[in-house]
Structure formats: C-alpha cells, structure tokens
C-alpha cells in the first residue's frame, strides 16, 4: 500500500526508546510524539506499538506504572530503565552507522 508509516524493520524500538528518554509517556502519547517529530511521516500503528512495548518491557529496557494523566484519567506510563538507556545508546550508534552507510550508497 506504500503507506509512509511502514517503518524500517527494527527501528520502532529505537524510536520508542528515544521518545521515552526525555520523560515517561503513555502509549498514545508515544505514538503521537513520533508522529509529530517526524512531521507526520512516521505513523505508528497500534498493532505494532503495543507488541513492541510488551517486548521492550520484557527485555527490561522500559518499565511501566499506572499514573494519572493531566485530564485525571488512569493510564499506563512507560519510562526508560538504566539498561534501556544503554540500549538506546547502542541502537542509536548502530542506526547512524547504518544510515550513513545507506547514504553513501544511495548518494554516490
């Protein structure tokens, strides 16, 4: 279908980690944030967001707790763990290497 939000395989984790590195957020906010920052280019499907969150939590890179939103509703807030922060660094490095390499190939 060629929708612009077809994310490169494996990058969703990196995006989530990065989004969470500033402050804890709930699922919907994560998706919105990614969408905003990328100028609506990256649209995170709920179908991939929640499994990804589950996976990251199982890996121990993020943790979650229930808290109140500004509107007073209970929501599940995700935040980065120390291990997650390290993982973010690793993945970011890998990503820049990879994108630089792709640039080299595509722009040559």
């Amino acid at each position, binding site marked *: 279908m060629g929708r612009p939000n077809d994310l490169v395989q494996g990058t969703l984790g990196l995006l989530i980690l990065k989004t969470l590195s500033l402050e804890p957020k709930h699922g919907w906010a994560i998706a919105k944030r990614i969408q905003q920052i990328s100028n609506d280019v990256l649209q995170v499907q709920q179908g991939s967001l929640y499994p990804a969150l589950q996976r990251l939590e199982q*890996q121990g890179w993020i943790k979650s707790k229930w808290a109140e939103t500004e509107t007073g509703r209970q929501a599940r807030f995700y935040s980065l763990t120390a291990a997650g922060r390290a993982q973010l660094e690793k993945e970011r490095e890998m990503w820049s290497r990879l994108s630089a390499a792709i640039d080299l190939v595509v722009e040559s």
Partner: protein
Amino acid sequence: MRWVNRVWKSMATLFRRGSETARLDEEMRFHLEQEEAERIRQGATPEQARREARREFGNPALLRDKARQGWSWGWVETIVRDVRFGLRGLKRSPGFSVTAIVVMSLCIGATTALFTVVHAVLMKPLPFRDPDKLVMVYEHFRANTSGSPYDSVAPGDFYDWRAKTHGFEDMGAFYPWNFNVSGEQGELPEVVDAVAGSWNLFHVLGVEPALGRTFTEAEDRAGQAPVAMLTWAFFQRRFGGDASILGKQIRLDAKPYTIVGVLPSWFSYPYANVQLWVPFSNGRTSEWLGRHGDHWASVVARIRPDVSPRTAIDEIGALQYRIHMNDLAQPIAEDVLPRSMIDDVVDGVKTPLLLMMAAVGCMLLIGCLNLSNLLVARGATRQKEVAIRGALGAGRLALVREQMTETILLCAAGGALGLLLAYAGTRWLATHWRGLPRTEMIHLDGTVILFSAGVVCLTALMAGLLPALSATNKDVLTALQDTARSVSGGISRAWLRKILLTTEVALTVVLLVSAGLLLKSFVRLRTTDLGSASENVLTMSYSLPESQYGKPEQRVAFTESLLERVRRLPGVQSAGLGSMAPGAGWGGDQVFIIPERPNYEPGRQPDAAYRVADPNYFDALKIPLIAGRVFNVHDRLDQSQKVIISQELAKRYFPGENPLQRHIVMGTDLTNAKRTYEIVGIVGDTLWQVGKTVKATTYFPALSGGKELHYTLVVRTSGDPLRFAIPVQKEIAGLDPQLPVKDILTIPQIVGESTVNQSLSASLVLAFATLSLILAGVGLYGVLSYLVTQRVTEIGIRIALGAQRGQVLRMVLRDGLRPVAIGLTIGIVAGVGVGFLIRSMLYGTQPLEPTVFAAMIGMLMVVALTASAAPAWRASSVNPIEALRTE
C-alpha cells in the same frame, strides 16, 4: 538484577495472564479514548470520531493476540490447546479411554510396585557405615558340591581369623538362637527369636544403640554374667518403650539377663523377626568357643581401606587351610568363601524378585503394544479428518504432536492411578512375602515417583509414536482416495498391527510358560509327601530351660506327666515326642563312623541328620517301621546306646547289607565307647524340609540322658487336630505355667508354611500372565475386527462372485491366526530359555515340562480362536448387496 526483573516479568505474564490481559485491554481502551478526544478537538462529531478511531486502531482481538505473543509464552498456550484437544478427543470415545487407562494403570502400577520392592531390597545400600567395605566370610568344604557352597563358620575358626589376620579392620560373628521369655509380673510366656552376636559386631556394622550401650568385650567371654540387648520392636511391645528398663533384668529361659541397651528402630539385621541380642559366648564354655568342627556362625568383616578384598580373603583362606591341616580328623573346611553383604541379605529373594520384575516388564510391554494397537485402529477411523487437516495446512509435526498428546494423557492418567495401585501393591507384597528382608526400606520415595514418571513417558512414546507416525505419513491425496473407494485398503497399517500382535503373543507365551512352570512346581511342593501321616496330626514345640530342667530326671518327669496327661484327653489316639516334626526344618547333622569301614576320604565322612524320638513318635506320625523295632520303655535313662536309622541311611551307608544289630560311632573317635550305638530299627524316610532332598537320619532315644532341651510334641487325634490345640496347651500350662509353646501346626500347615513364598511368586506370575493373555486376546480381536471392517467390500465382492461362507470364514481365521502362530513359535523358544533361567526356583519340574508347554499353548490357542471367531463369523455373514452399497 536485570534478569531477576525479566524472570519476574515472565512469571507475571505466565501466572497472572488474566490481570495482565485486563491491563492490556485497559491500556488499549485508553488509547482509543485519547484518539477519539483528539478527533473531537479537531472538529469531528463524537459518532464520527469513535468510528474513525476504531478504524484507525484496527481489530482489537488481533492486536491483543499480537501483544500477547510478545510475552513469549506461546508454547504454553500451544500445550494447553493440545491438551484441551486431546481431552476432547478422549471424551468422544469414553469406552476406549477408560479401557486404555485401566490397562495402563494396571501395567504401570504393577511395574512400579515391583520396582519399589526391587529398589528397596536389592538396590538401596545397606544402612550401615561404609557398607561397601563389609563382606561376609563363609567356610567352604571342598566336598560340598550340592546346593549353597557357603558353609557356616566354626567359632574356633572365627576367633583365629580375627586374631591372626591383618586385612580387616575388624570382624564380628553371630548365630541364631531363641529364648523362652517369661514375665516378671505374670505376663504370658513366649518364645522369641534371638541372635547371639560378638561384642564388636555393632562396631563392625557401624550401628549405635538407641538407648544404653552395646556389649563390652568382657561381657562376651565364657562364664560372664548374662546380658541382653533388645530390638526396638521388642522394647516397644513388651516394655512399652519405658527407658527405665535399662539395667534391669529380664528372664530368658528362666535365667535373669541384665538389659544393657536397645537397638534403633531401623535395625532389622540379620532378620526382621529378631527380638533380642545376647553376646556370642552367652552360655557357652571356652572349650565350645574354641571348637573348629561345629559350624554355626556367620561372619561379617570390614575390610581395611588400604587392603584389596582379594588379599584380605586370601589371607584368611591360607589360615583356614592351616587350621584344616592341623586336625584332619575333624570336619574343618579347607577354604573360605566371601560373599558381599547385600547378596547375603537378599539370598533367596533375588531370583524371584528379578523374575517378577521381568514378568511385569513383559506385561507392561504387552500393555503398550495393545494400546498401540488400539491407537492404530483409532488412527484409521480418523484418517480422513487427519488428511483434511493436513490439506488445510496443519504441519505433520503438529498432527503427530496432537496424537502424542492424547497418548501421553492416557498414559499419565494410567500412571497416576497406577501409582495409587503401586502404593497398595507394595504394602501387600511387603506383608505377604514371608521373610522378605529389608521391608522397612520399602516405601514410595522420590526415586520411585521418578521411575514411574519415566515409565509413563516411555510407554507413551512406545505406544503412541508408531501409530502417530503411521497415521500421518500418508499424503493427502492417497488418504482421501483410500477412504473414498477402497476395496482392500489399509494393508500397510494391518501389517504394522500384525507385527505388534506377533510380539504380544510371543511375550504372552513366555509369561504363560514361566507361570505354568512355577505353578507346577508349587503344586508339586504342596502335594509333597513328607513321609508321615498328613491328616489328624497336631505338632507343637517347647524348649525346657536348662536352669529348671538341668537334670535328665527333671526332663523325664516333665515329659512323662505331659504325655500321660495328653494321652488321657478324649479323642487323642496317640501322643509321642521327638526333637522335630517332619518338614519342620534342619535340626543339625552329626558325622559318624561305621566300625567295619573306619577309613574314608577326607571330607567324605558319613553324616546324618540328628533327631531324637520317644517310643510313640513313629506311631503318632505313622512313620512306617521297615525292619527291627522302635524304641521301648527301656531305651531311656539306662544309656542303652540304641539308635534307629532311616531307610536312606541304610541304603546309602549299608548297601546290600543288613544294618540291624550293627554299630555306628558318632563323632570322629572310633574308640569312643560312650558314643557307640547299636542299630535296632529302620524306619521310613521323612523330608526335613519341603522341596529338599531326603537326608540320611539317625534317631536317638528321647530322654536318654542327652542334653536335648527342645522337643516337639506330636499328637494324633480323631477329627480336626486343631481342636486339640487349646486342651493340650492347657495341660502344658498346668505343669509349668511359665513354659511357652510355639509352632502349633498340623502337617499340612507345616507344608504350607514352607511353600508360602512359592505360592506367592507362582500366583503373582500367573496373575501377570493371565492379564497378558486377556490383553493379547483383546488385541487379536481388535486387529481382526478392524481388518474385517476394512475388507467388507472385498468380502462382499468375493461372496457375490460365489465364494462360500466357509471359505471366507477360513480366510479371516487364517489371517488372524498367522501372527498368533508366529508369535507362539517365537514365544516357545524364548519360554524354553526362561525355563532354564529360573531352574533354581523349580521343584520337581523340568524347564522343558511337556505338560506345562502343552497346557499353555492350548490355553493360548483357545483364547486366540475365541478372539478370532467373532470377527470371522461377522465376515462370513456379510450381505454382499449391503456391503457393496455401503460406501
């Protein structure tokens, strides 16, 4: 820390799936709400917003499933699903499921029960310190070539070994005894089994007393004040576990013994029924303790860790040979023979136990094959279903896994039931197996549960894998075609089933043959003629304590009045006295010399069982007098030096001669006039033990002034002899209220007592064989019915084309009986082998007993024919029109 967290998280998603799912739902609901709110903010109507949000969101159920896959517990869900599937499948055919579970529970239960006993009795190490270093040392006469090569040890030899060899840390000795225990406060007198053990025996074994102490070296010398130790059971039973009994006295054979200690409750060596221990030298003289020619004791030795067992034993062997050479006139063994302690303890039960274990193993295998057979049949009826599912994309692995789950469920249910059965079976075996050693070790423990779990897995694999593979290996097309229009389908599967059936039959034949051989020898044993009257005879024994009846006159007085009182009882036809009743066991042997032939090869001196008898003993037992006379009233205190011999003795040592009025000299000294006896009579042979060969026997006059203290009263009665038990006991109590009586038995009871274990093993193996036979019959029936159903169309065509009903009948029968015939042949060959293997358990029965083989083959054929008859009849009565229409 991280992995702890991860494990915690995993566990949470596994065990709190419910609440985790709820949280996930809640989270997604929140997401939807936010999405809706956003859209409303952007100006959409609430209705529109909700619809769009939902559309954007996608299928919530699918999302949930996807998210849950992230939990990585997919395989658990697969298993749960398989189990649910399996259960549903089994519920659909309850008859099959119940049969299979019952069969498997019987098989697994019996196997587990036997394993529990085998494990406890044969495999667990003995409960002593460093049991590997313990070894039994026996003597061995080179002339002893029959039966057990292990000869008891003479006390003199034991003391020499202990003092003069260096390969052992220490060695102890013991021999069995029994005591009359009389109560201080008027408790009933009783006879208890005891053991006389050397003072250091408990140190050798590494056993600490539960209370008090063991014997000291000083107490284990001739002529010391008598002391005793109690076993835990006796301490509890007779003294109510009152520890103040230590240091007090107990009257054994009317003599006071000081109690010095109590043994721990687990200690049941050397036999479970031992109640008391006394020092080895108790009541013996130093002369007796130095004897090399009297063989009584068993010796336990602890090998030094730095010495090899071989070296240590060789040293004793060399010493024993020197002792032998020192005094060639005495019966002193030339060699010694070691035996591991565990083998010694389980002597006599090892072969039957292993045989029964093998028998249940066979039964288990047959059960598996049968289940396998049933499953193949089930697989055939579900062939279409399996094919369609395969066509819809189910992997072969998934299909096999599903079928295996069913089998595993069956076997697990059978195993769980079987474990309960095993619990009951083990207790039954432990209580009904007379003289089974180490019963206190028998309980269902971790090893046993692990074993039965292993058996469950193994049976599931054996029973399930073959059918599962064969049911799924057809490619879809053939399977669908096969079921749609087949006239003689399923040939390959029938072939598989026939092989299973052949194996089943072969195993059954082996079991049947073993059971038949055991049963036959048991019947032989039960109907043994002891050589005496078997009806209307009552026997009972008593031992006169030496302290009260030390003088011969005292014993004569007691016995005279007892016999007189008993004979006066109405209904008593005859009453006599002897040292033992026929069949009641071994009462000791004595060597003798025939003066006319004083020379004999070393170790080949004539010997005979030693018995005493009064003038009425032979009459009361109806032991026939062959020649000469029995004792008369004059052969008593007058030291008349008369002896009566058995026919066997006459035959063996006086072949072709008339032994009457000849003399024999007891012992090894030809010139000993005091022990020279004149033969006055020859009586018929009696067996000393059921199942053993006749021994040459000498009878000396009871009350001749010898030291005999143990007597057996034999009473011939009119009518049921057991009715006289109480009146006779009352007469004994009237003469001496402190004198206990034991072994109140009729002759059939004596025979029964000594054959109770043969009865047990024969009936157990027979039960296993019968079950196997039934299983094999059911299996055969199943296979044939299946074949007939498969071939209905074919048979219909045959009949339509003019085949006679008889021909069809024969065809099906032939089909069914071919695997039986092959299995039978294999089984007979294997049965012969097994017969030879269990030869040591057979009595009066050859491993190739034709009657047994014929009977068992006949039985199997009857079952096979019965099982084939119904399907064959059904086949021959097929209506061709219907058969061809049914498709």
